[in-house]
């Protein structure tokens, strides 16, 4: 890729400014809670922006633009029906219960609600997933810096590790969340510049629609026929909107952790809810560029369709803007890497180290362990990154792994919060049974993962209900504050909440 002076200055300025800004927040870290939950002082608007910064990665730019090039606006279902309702559900049902439980991680909540066994299984699954994803992210950043700046991949990976590691290790969640805010702004400025310029080139929205629709009449339909291999409408509604999306927005550690760092329960709920607004606009940054590339260059075929976004940067943008859009691209990547790093360290510290290795130590000890584990994950990701080159399908494999346990995780979490009769045996059997169902369907059938998620969710739901009904209920005192019925229908608790809401106490 051609590199121009002004672009280079913009990219380097961005790569230097982010760690400097992040390290500033080191001074606020004194305890374990400061490190993993930003001292519980995050306001709702920072939580919102950090959630979206974490959610949108460089793969979204590449994959979503490529998907839009192939299938059109239907790709935006992942940002709309596949996100917004789930975010409302998460904000108004799940987040307040995690908050009330005073936990640091989602597996910790499941451990309180069900049993240690459920907590450990969830922690291992999420911990392994996050650790592997880090390697893929590092490799992707190495490739990007290599492609754009011509730096050898190995050195590019080390630069990424240094940039992200320095502020994540020192500043914890506060540094991660604050840099996410800046990165989201960079993403929006860069992405909007690209889209506006593309639309201007084509004579506006109507020009884009005319050019694309003439050859691809389905490209402006949100729902595609059932014979579509990737985005069949039934899979989008039942698999994505009803299962995978709520599982992601209600149970994903890296997403939920920001809300647990909120300064109040209202900020936690509002943070998740308001994140819906930038989320709704994300298709402008990642889907529309795919359609613009199709209109300007309909010749991309096969795997090259995933290069729709880089093609636009290279061929559409003038000097200066290319650097800005590349910085946006890096911002998407770095904001996902730092969050994954922080969440992986939180999971391993709280759910593995603190639960099984050193149970009762000082706050300073766990703070130190959190920092050391973050460093370990940085080193792990550096070592693991080149492995992804040898196994190009590794990212797809990890996403498949995620879809295998997401449905069951959502099923037991939903029942755990909404149904007080769900008990430890139901939760454990529902989780294991659901994972068994999705794994079996994955190997036996050739169904889309959207359908597999739906059936594993239903199976897990059914197993949890049946096993719970045939085994002993949990004692009420164990469930207080964790289950919907025991807060929302408790007259005494409601009176307290009402008085607080009216400023009475």
């Amino acid at each position: 890729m051609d590199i121009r002076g002004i672009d280079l200055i913009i990219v380097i300025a961005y790569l230097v400014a982010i760690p400097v800004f992040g390290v500033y927040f080191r001074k606020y870290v004194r305890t374990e809670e400061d490190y993993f939950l930003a001292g519980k002082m995050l306001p709702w608007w920072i939580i919102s922006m950090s959630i979206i910064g974490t959610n949108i990665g460089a793969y979204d730019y590449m994959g979503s633009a490529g998907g839009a090039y192939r299938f059109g606006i239907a790709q935006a279902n992942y940002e709309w029906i596949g996100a917004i309702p789930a975010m409302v559900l998460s904000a108004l049902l799940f987040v307040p219960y995690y908050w009330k439980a005073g936990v640091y991680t989602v597996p910790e909540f499941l451990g309180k609600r069900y049993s240690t066994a459920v907590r450990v299984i969830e922690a291992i699954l999420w911990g392994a997933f996050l650790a592997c994803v880090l390697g893929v992210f590092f490799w992707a950043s190495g490739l990007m810096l290599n492609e754009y700046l011509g730096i050898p991949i190995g050195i590019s990976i080390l630069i990424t590790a240094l940039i992200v590691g320095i502020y994540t290790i020192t500043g914890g969640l506060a540094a991660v969340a604050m840099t996410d805010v800046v990165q989201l702004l960079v993403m929006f400025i860069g992405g909007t510049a690209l889209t506006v310029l593309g639309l201007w080139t084509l004579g506006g929205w109507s020009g884009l629609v005319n050019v694309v629709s003439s050859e691809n009449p389905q490209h402006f339909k949100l729902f595609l026929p059932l014979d579509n291999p990737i985005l069949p409408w039934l899979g989008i509604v039942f698999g994505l909107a009803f299962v995978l999306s709520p599982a992601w927005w209600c149970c994903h550690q890296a997403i939920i952790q920001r809300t647990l760092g909120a300064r109040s329960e209202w900020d936690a709920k509002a943070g998740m809810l308001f994140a819906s607004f930038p989320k709704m606009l994300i298709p402008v940054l990642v889907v529309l560029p795919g359609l613009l590339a199709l209109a300007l260059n309909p010749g991309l075929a096969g795997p090259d369709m995933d290069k729709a976004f880089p093609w636009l940067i290279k061929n559409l943008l003038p000097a200066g803007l290319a650097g800005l859009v590349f910085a946006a691209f890096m911002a998407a990547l770095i904001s996902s890497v730092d969050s994954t790093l922080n969440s992986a360290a939180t999971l391993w510290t709280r759910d593995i180290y603190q639960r099984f290795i050193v149970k009762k130590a000082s706050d300073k000890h766990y703070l130190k362990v959190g920092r050391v584990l973050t460093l370990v994950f940085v080193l792990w990701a550096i070592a693991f990154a080149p492995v992804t080159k040898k196994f190009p399908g590794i990212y797809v494999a990890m996403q498949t792994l995620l879809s295998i346990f997401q449905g069951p995780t959502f099923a037991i979490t939903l029942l755990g919060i909404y149904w007080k009769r769900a008990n430890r045996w139901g939760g454990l059997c529902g989780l294991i049974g659901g994972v068994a169902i999705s794994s079996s369907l994955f190997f036996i059938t050739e169904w889309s993962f959207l359908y597999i998620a739906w059936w594993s969710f239903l199976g897990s739901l059914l197993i949890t209900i049946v096993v719970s009904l045939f085994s002993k209920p949990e004692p009420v005192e164990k469930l207080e504050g964790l289950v919907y019925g025991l807060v929302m229908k408790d007259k005494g608790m409601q009176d307290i909440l009402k008085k607080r809401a009216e400023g009475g106490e």
Partner: protein
Amino acid sequence: MAEWLKSLSLVWGKIIAIVFFVSMIIWAWFRPRSFIFHEAPNTRRWRDLRIWAAVFLGLQIIIYLIF
């Protein structure tokens, strides 16, 4: 996949989506006021998260009606 499923029109996707969004608005709207404002600094109207939910989901309904 069952034949009757394959014969379902795309319009059904749109209908299910709209019903889903409307159901979510109704569900959110009936969250108790005390729950919505719990730990809020004040109870000004803009802090009512039920309104936020209705607006965001309402925008989704418009998008899915258009496309």
